[in-house]
């Protein structure tokens, strides 16, 4: 496919890999965080890790919009649909995210709530227009990429004087999340998470531009390379980061020049500024309360804001005790460090949000990379259960008995706070 295949060329990838291997200093390690789920997905899907030298390590960041959505916000959305009887319109990714009481939007829908999957918030507007007797709420989530369309929907609703449309706003901001990670004790004081540089967001940066990252380079002395979501983009960005670190530079560089400018998309930014304002604080799954990290709808548009309109009261809900999504989102742990990963937490039955979206670190790792796991994890049959016939487990000579590692039994799931 034209304009895509060029960025997935295997020969070019190998030559870039060769350059990274030659230029990476064998006496040091490079810990690079890819902030975005899109990059995580590309790294797993194309097996980029295999192409990198052992001392260049990728750390997954929290840039998966579905993964950072706290359970309490999904509970509120379900409540709107079930108890207030609204038509709740949502992007597909959020449908399966586990909420409280064993629910999810998908399960609430099956139980009779009117929850509809839309591909854009313009569809939600249309549903409101076509169903004047129903109240329609758009469950808005996402980083800066999905924020301008939501702003447009609010302005359009005002223009059309739609009385039955509102937005349940959960838009979050990338730069504040990066700051939060850099300020976290694990990075700053304890040094548990060595972070040497960032691969900056692709689509987010098309909106906000490259300028907002200057602060990280200057204040925290961390290089940032903004990169596209194609595998060659990621490889090129890694090479650029390795070069910056070798030179002792900490700059913002732009690999994704075909789409990102320093100032970003002025029109989109103006729309966002017109409709939204900063929240003082917002809870992120995994990161906790992050100051000034999310957007709320301005007072002027409050009739299109589902929170005051329906008196939404936020109730924080802790993650499942065994789930390591929080630590994984902060880069403190890897999916395979989580004791429920692939055992009771699978894409079919996700316990944590990282297993839900295909951009989540756990789902990407499970889907594309689990066959590369070491012998300990390979011993856990459930990782492969989907591919086995019933009753096959015992007779398979190659599978290690699950009982051989007590840490990997289902009872792990019932343990109190394992591994923390």
């Amino acid at each position: 496919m034209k304009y895509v295949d060029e960025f997935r060329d295997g020969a070019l990838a190998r030559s870039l890999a060769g350059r990274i291997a030659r230029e990476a200093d064998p006496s040091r390690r490079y810990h690079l965080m890819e902030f975005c789920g899109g990059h995580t997905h590309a790294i797993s899907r194309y097996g980029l890790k295999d192409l990198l030298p052992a001392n260049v390590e990728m750390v997954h960041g929290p840039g998966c919009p579905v993964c950072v959505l706290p359970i309490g916000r999904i509970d509120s959305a379900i409540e709107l649909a079930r108890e207030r009887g609204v038509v709740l319109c949502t992007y597909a990714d959020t449908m399966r995210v586990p909420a409280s009481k064993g629910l999810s939007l998908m399960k609430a829908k099956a139980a009779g709530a009117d929850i509809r999957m839309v591909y854009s918030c313009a569809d939600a507007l249309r549903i409101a227009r076509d169903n004047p007797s129903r109240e329609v709420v758009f469950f808005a989530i996402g980083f800066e990429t999905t924020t301008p369309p939501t702003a447009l929907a609010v302005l359009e609703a005002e223009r059309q004087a739609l009385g039955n449309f509102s937005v349940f706003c959960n838009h979050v901001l990338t730069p504040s999340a990066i700051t939060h990670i850099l300020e976290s004790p694990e990075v700053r004081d304890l040094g548990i998470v060595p972070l040497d540089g960032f691969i900056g967001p692709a689509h987010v940066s098309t909106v906000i531009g490259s300028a907002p990252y200057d602060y990280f380079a200057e204040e925290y002395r961390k290089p940032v390379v903004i990169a596209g979501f194609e595998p060659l983009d990621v490889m090129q960005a890694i090479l650029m980061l390795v070069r910056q670190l070798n030179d002792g530079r900490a700059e913002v560089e732009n690999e994704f020049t075909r789409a990102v400018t320093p100032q970003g998309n002025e029109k989109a930014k103006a729309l966002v500024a017109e409709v939204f304002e900063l929240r003082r604080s917002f809870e992120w799954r995994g990161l906790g309360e992050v100051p000034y990290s999310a957007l709320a709808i301005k007072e002027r548009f409050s009739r299109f804001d589902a929170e005051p309109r329906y008196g939404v009261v936020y109730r924080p809900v802790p993650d499942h005790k065994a789930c390591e999504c929080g630590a994984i989102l902060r880069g403190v742990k890897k999916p395979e460090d989580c004791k429920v990963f692939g055992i009771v937490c699978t894409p079919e039955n996700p316990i944590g949000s990282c297993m839900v979206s295909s951009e989540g670190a756990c789902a990407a790792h499970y889907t594309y990379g689990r066959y590369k796991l070491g012998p300990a994890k390979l011993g856990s049959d459930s990782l492969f259960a989907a591919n086995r016939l019933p009753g096959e487990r015992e007779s398979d000579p190659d599978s290690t008995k699950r009982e051989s590692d007590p840490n990997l039994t289902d009872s792990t799931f019932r343990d109190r706070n394992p591994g923390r």
Partner: protein
Amino acid sequence: MTRDGGKVESDPTFPRRKAYVRPLDFKGGRVDMTHGSGGRAMAQLIDDLFAAAFDNEWLRQGNDGARVPAPSGRLVVATDSHVITPLFFPGGDIGALSVHGTINDVAVMGATPLWLAAGFVLEEGFPLADLRRIVESMAAASREAGVPVITGDTKVVEKGKGDGVFITTTGVGVVADGVELGGDRARPGDRVLVSGTMGDHGVAIMSLRENLTFETTIASDTAALNGLAAAMLAAAPGLRVMRDPTRGGLATTLNEIARQSRVGFVLDEAAIPVKPEVEAACEFLGLDPLYVANEGKVVAVCAAEDAGRLLAAMRVHPLGGDAAIVGSAIDDPHHFVQMDTRFGGRRIVDWLAGEQLPRIC
């Protein structure tokens, strides 16, 4: 004869009048509850629409079931329900699909499909014009494939309790002695073939889904595969597995075979035929063509030494022009389906988790 035994025809006081029956209004008429009630309206719908379109000796007998001679050998029976939205799509409609789908399920078992049975669940208010279009399309598909619909049933449900029309078809076929196809027969070293481009049907349907209309020239590949399957069996009688990769696409079909046969598969991404338009649509929807449904394609597994002959036979058939060898079976205790990507890495092609949903960013 009248009740008292007198002859109406001979009685001059009761001149014979031809009973007037209002014909079905195929222009503006709609299905109503009487069409499923067992009364005259239902009889009329069956006679004037279904029996007329599918016309054959068994339906003409008007019995509750069809009596057919038992063929010698082993029978294959397959059934499939069709609930597709939209009902009409580029390249076909629910009618043609319901005939093709079941014929294909029988054919990939290595059988010659002989007969079909069809059950209709109609929703009150469904336009008769659309129903006629669907039934005529079914009849055409069945005639073209040479597999008659010999018995059927119609039910009507109240408005809101169905989605226009649901069609269930059941097919019966006969399988020759010596033909032993099954999902459990793949062996390490075997080759995997596909009969053509992957994902056409799913993308054609998705392009029409509510909220997602995009312009595309892609048409569904819906087709009856009994001719192609027979040609494949003739070229490679030792064929191990045939499957039609419908829901879940090639990826799901191969995972099923891997599990049943206790083998792994390694695919070569570059060898898998995908139309550029399908690839582009999947790219912007965040979907993977390997998981998108096909309705006129077959996946085959055969011994390595048969692969060349099989491929040649497929390519000369009108439905197999783009056939390709796309991978091999390997010994793998975990029964994974893996793929060597064009990019140069190897990755798992896993079971689909839940529905394949578009990603948002």
